[in-house]
């Protein structure tokens, strides 16, 4: 950036307004002062709305959650808070529903995220070919993203229906017995993961595609001169070339997985599905949070679950870093 620009923008040297010499001295000084105030202050005014709204409706609630988790608060009497120190945490630790929900969150998170990102990578690779109708394929892969979690969960509930659902019908036509997609634990978790995968694969693929297109062509040329096969080029040029995008999607998917709520809520059960199936077979931490707060009316315990979710997220990132470090050491 040119120095003059920098100065003009920082206001170190406010340029005298041309043709302003006619006014009185005080008016001019006032004008310069206003100008200086504008140049110094306007940037803060422009970014302020974001921070004000974030502070009020995101940051403050997040911090206040920890305070509430140290209290007994009932849904009906929100202004009555009784200090209980760490009782909520102790109870949660001894509550088998918590461990069950934690386990379900992790397993559904893994079976929804890992295949999703691998499929997205493959899809991005396909979309990166030169071809006809490329716009159609891109928009088509983004259609699930336009579907709300509620609509998607309702449709997949029917597709996975035990008695007349399409999947069991298709399985039956090749001689496989009907799968109990809702009442059995693992089938239910697979079905819920399918909803997640369906909604987000195309979106992630487009992120990968954008990154793939930013890889300089020379790297491919160099690789092909070295005699690298297409597969080698994919693993040695493409994947390393989009590494930070992959990290970004892993971070976002991990956050999404710890928060999973709508899919297991609606799958099979409707708005009373907060238990995540008759045996809690697919209750996630998100559902447990809602059940404690809005079905059992224990807001303090609900806040405790929220903190547990936060800790899970932190642990997930620590684990990812550790794995990364170990792998870079071994290779």
């Amino acid at each position: 950036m040119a120095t003059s620009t920098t100065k003009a923008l920082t206001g170190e040297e406010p340029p005298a307004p041309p043709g302003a010499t006619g006014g009185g001295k005080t008016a001019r000084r006032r004008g310069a002062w206003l100008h200086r105030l504008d140049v110094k202050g306007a940037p803060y005014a422009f970014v302020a709305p974001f921070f004000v709204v974030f502070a009020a409706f995101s940051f403050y609630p997040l911090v206040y959650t920890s305070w509430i988790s140290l209290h007994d608060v009932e849904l009906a009497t929100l202004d009555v808070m009784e200090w209980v120190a760490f009782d909520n945490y102790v109870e949660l630790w001894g509550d088998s529903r918590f461990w069950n929900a934690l386990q379900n969150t992790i397993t559904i998170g893994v079976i929804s995220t890992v295949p999703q990102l691998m499929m997205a990578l493959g899809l991005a690779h396909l979309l990166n070919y030169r071809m006809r109708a490329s716009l159609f394929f891109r928009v088509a892969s983004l259609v699930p993203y336009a579907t709300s979690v509620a609509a998607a969960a309702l449709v997949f509930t029917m597709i996975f229906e035990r008695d007349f659902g399409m999947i069991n019908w298709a399985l039956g036509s090749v001689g496989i017995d009907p799968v109990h997609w809702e009442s059995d634990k693992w089938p239910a978790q697979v079905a819920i993961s399918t909803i997640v995968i369906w909604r987000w694969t195309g979106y992630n693929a487009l992120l990968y595609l954008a990154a793939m297109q930013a890889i300089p062509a020379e790297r491919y040329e160099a690789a092909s001169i070295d005699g690298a096969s297409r597969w080698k080029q994919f693993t040695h040029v493409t994947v390393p070339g989009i590494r930070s995008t992959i990290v970004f999607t892993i971070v976002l998917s991990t956050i999404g997985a710890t928060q999973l709520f709508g899919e297991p809520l609606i799958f099979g059960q409707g708005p009373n599905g907060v238990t995540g199936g008759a045996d809690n077979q697919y209750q996630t931490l998100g559902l447990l949070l809602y059940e404690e707060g809005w079905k059992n009316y224990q807001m303090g315990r609900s806040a405790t679950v929220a903190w547990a979710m936060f800790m899970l997220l932190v642990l997930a990132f620590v684990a990812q870093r550790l794995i990364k470090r170990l792998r870079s050491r071994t290779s």
Partner: protein
Amino acid sequence: MTTNSLPVRTEPPVRTPVEKPAGRGGRRLLRQGAGRQHHAGPLAYVLLVVMAVLSIFPLYWTMVAASTDNTRVSQTPPPFLPGPNLFSNLARAWDEAAMGKAMVNSLIVAGVIALSTVMFATLAGFAFAKLRFKGRNILLMLVIGTMMVPPQLGVVPLFMMMSELGWSQQLPAVIFPTLVSAVGVFFMRQYLSEALPDELVEAGRVDGAHSLRIFWSIVLPVARPAMAVLFMITFVHAWNDFFWPFVVLDMTNPTVPVALTQLSAGYVRDQSLIMAGALLGTLPLLAMFIVFGRQIVSGIMAGAVKG
């Protein structure tokens, strides 16, 4: 909003290959990756068609199920072709399931959120991209950091706050917490730092324009294509947002996703009615994708972290 014919180039006309538009097909690919861009073979086409079918089929089948009746849906093999009852089912969903009210509510919520997100994101994005001020980098890092904070974690205090404000079950409870978005700020910053020449801003300063005036007359015209894309993406997110609206709204005053949960709650599940509701709630966004698909795709790709 911009007109349909406006080709939204999220790529600025000048400089740098960092921000790329999507979907502008062969021309750019030729230029950029001549050594790389193999033509798709038959296998690639087959796989892509399979993918497109998998993507679209659930929605197609929603339409099929919404156009038959409850007995037909529950038979095996399931129906694969549309029946005659689409419009009567849609009308039923509109009336019985309060989908009409939900659609209006969602339109208000998503519209207001998208408008304010675009406005504040453009303001902040301009400041981060083109204005110098103390703490700019730290504040920008903060914005990016806030993307990592899952909103669900603050839901209990937020709920208490809303009931204190008297907004429980009211639309402002859904609107206010999402008036801004970190992704939007970052997106506009990326776009403006490429698309808005420093000389333009400087020229405005020399002419004695104050910052808001520069924003209004110089930045806004340049930012318009990106604002349109951000509006649509934010609209989609706000329309589909589920967790917080589900917590704070009730069935007398729902948004579309909240109303959809009610549809499936009855003892006798009327499958066709449920699917009609799901279809109805998805139609506005589908229409948007069909008309502005190219722009939305390019917007998502332009906002991607690359490298």
